[in-house]
């Protein structure tokens, strides 16, 4: 029973981390329809920033808001310089431009920081929360909890602010948004900024848990794609649910089937879910043929 609970909680925490990783990706897609293949690289950027801030004496969790705003700025600039032009181009072009960005960021990271592994090790890095025989690492708990809070905040931002309303309107119908006077170029830039900010934030929260190195992004991109498509591309709660599903699948299949089987398990489940519910678990039906909505 202890083992089961331990696995359950570990899985939920891992799922929370995955949800956090995927938040920015799903937001950017939901609004701009851009599948950001450089998502993992922006997470990497967040991790590097956190590392260097930590080197300067910042606690990683104090660094996190700084990283969020720095990445927000990077996102806005990237959108303005590169992606704005692609809005009128075929969808494929956008995919490819983000792929190009990921190549450039990986290579740039390697030139600037070498291929060394960097580790952020705060004093509480090994702190545990113990409930009976169940032990959970503090850093992962914080990441998972902040994933929840982050999702809720982004959700509130979208629901309760004027900018949020503009973002949702643009996501649902960019032409109509334009007709009512919403500057959709600004909306895209802000959305991309928030999405990249979330990616950077995820990086900051992951930095005390995982090492950072130039190619760390690919794994994060792949996992967030699985999570996001599973949960429903473009749906914020979907990213969280998708993350939890993948996290639980991972820990349980690793323990009860075989550690080697976990990728096979979640890719199989992934395909099955997509076949039965093509829009993902929380995606709106039919959205797989056009993208998704909130």
């Amino acid at each position: 029973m202890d083992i089961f609970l331990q696995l359950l909680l570990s899985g939920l925490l891992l799922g929370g981390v995955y949800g956090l990783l995927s938040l920015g990706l799903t937001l950017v897609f939901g609004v701009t329809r851009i599948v950001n293949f450089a998502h993992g690289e922006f997470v990497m950027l967040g991790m590097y920033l956190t590392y260097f801030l930590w080197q300067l004496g910042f606690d990683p969790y104090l660094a996190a808001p700084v990283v969020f705003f720095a990445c927000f700025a990077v996102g806005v600039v990237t959108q303005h310089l590169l992606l704005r032009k692609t809005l009128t181009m075929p969808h494929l072009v956008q995919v490819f431009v983000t792929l190009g960005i990921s190549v450039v960021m990986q290579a740039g990271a390697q030139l600037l920081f070498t291929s060394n592994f960097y580790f952020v090790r705060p004093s509480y890095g090994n702190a545990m929360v113990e409930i009976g025989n169940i032990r959970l690492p503090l850093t992962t708990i914080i990441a998972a909890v902040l994933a929840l809070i982050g999702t809720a905040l982004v959700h509130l931002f979208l629901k309760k602010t004027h900018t949020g309303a503009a973002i949702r309107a643009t996501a649902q119908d960019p032409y109509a948004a334009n007709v009512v006077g919403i500057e959709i170029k600004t909306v895209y830039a802000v959305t991309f900024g928030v999405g990249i900010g979330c990616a950077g934030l995820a990086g900051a929260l992951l930095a005390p848990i995982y090492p950072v190195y130039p190619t760390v992004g690919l794994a994060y991109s792949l996992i967030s794609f699985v999570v996001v498509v599973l949960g429903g591309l473009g749906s914020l709660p979907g990213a969280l649910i998708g993350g939890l599903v993948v996290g639980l699948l991972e820990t349980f299949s690793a323990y009860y089937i075989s550690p080697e089987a976990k990728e096979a398990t979640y890719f199989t489940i992934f395909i099955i879910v997509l076949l039965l519910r093509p829009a993902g678990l929380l995606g709106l039906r039919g959205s797989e043929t056009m993208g998704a909505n909130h």
Partner: protein
Amino acid sequence: MNTNTISTRIQPSLQAASLGRTVTLWVIIVGALYITASRLTDEHLVDLMFQIMLAASLAGAWNIVGGFGGQIALGHAAFFGIGAYTSTILFQHYHLTPWIGMLAGALFAALLATLIGAVTLRLRGPFFAMTTVAFTELVRIIVKNWDSLTGGTRGLWIPWEPNPWNFSFSDRNSYLLVAVTLAVLVFSTTAIMAKTKLGFLLNALREDADAARSVGVKATRARLISFAISAAFVALGGTLYAQYSLSIDPTSVLSFDISIQMALMSAVGGLGTVIGPALGAIAAVTSSSLLRGWFGGELGALHLLLYGVLFILVMLYARGGLLGMAINVKKRLTRRFGQGQSDV
């Protein structure tokens, strides 16, 4: 849809003349390729040309689904790997010549593609892309774990015992000739496809999915057929790669990167055009080879950085890829030339 109707309207009048010219041009290019392939002596150049031909075949094959069909398939590495593994396994276990193994691999890939195509028919854009990625991951995981058949992560080696019957040559030029043949096959198929109903249906599917859906069964069939053809060609390339490199393992023939490369080259060259992917392959292979050669890895990732930047620039500023750029330049030149004439 508009452009389609225009082009189909224009075609009949031009068809006879342009068809003749196209065929002549094609014969000349193919002839030149074969002569170069058999005469080239510099091994590095032979290798470079081989890489280009293989890359062009793969990009051209991907283009059938990704360019003409407009479906972002990011799992073609699966077919590449299936081709490489099928022929190699058949050779090692049953001593079946890779020439036949190659066809078996292509058939296997085509069948699987039809199956995947059938179940993912409803999916579009990122959903389709992710399903193909997941499918490739599954293939990779199966290959990795089926040790007795596939050699697991260690992979399989192909002994180098030159014997043309066993698809093993003492000189590189022979491999190159096979690669040229594959490329000719791929691009002839795409050229023919572009002129036929299949190409038209795919185009329609890409341009206006809803309208094409009303075409119904035919559209579905067109998509499945194109997916199968594309997969089969990529599988042929897989066997060729295996025979040339003499060793295959899950990382070298089943990685995500391979799927991406096919798509990137196709996009750089010009999506949905016949010769675009070939241009993309030439540009990608030579530039990465040159950049790597110039910097020799001494500046770490600089060549990757430049490659990435160049790629983004082409995507952003050359509409329709390199081919589109070339056509634009030609148009501008002829216009200027034409104006000059009228002035004089």
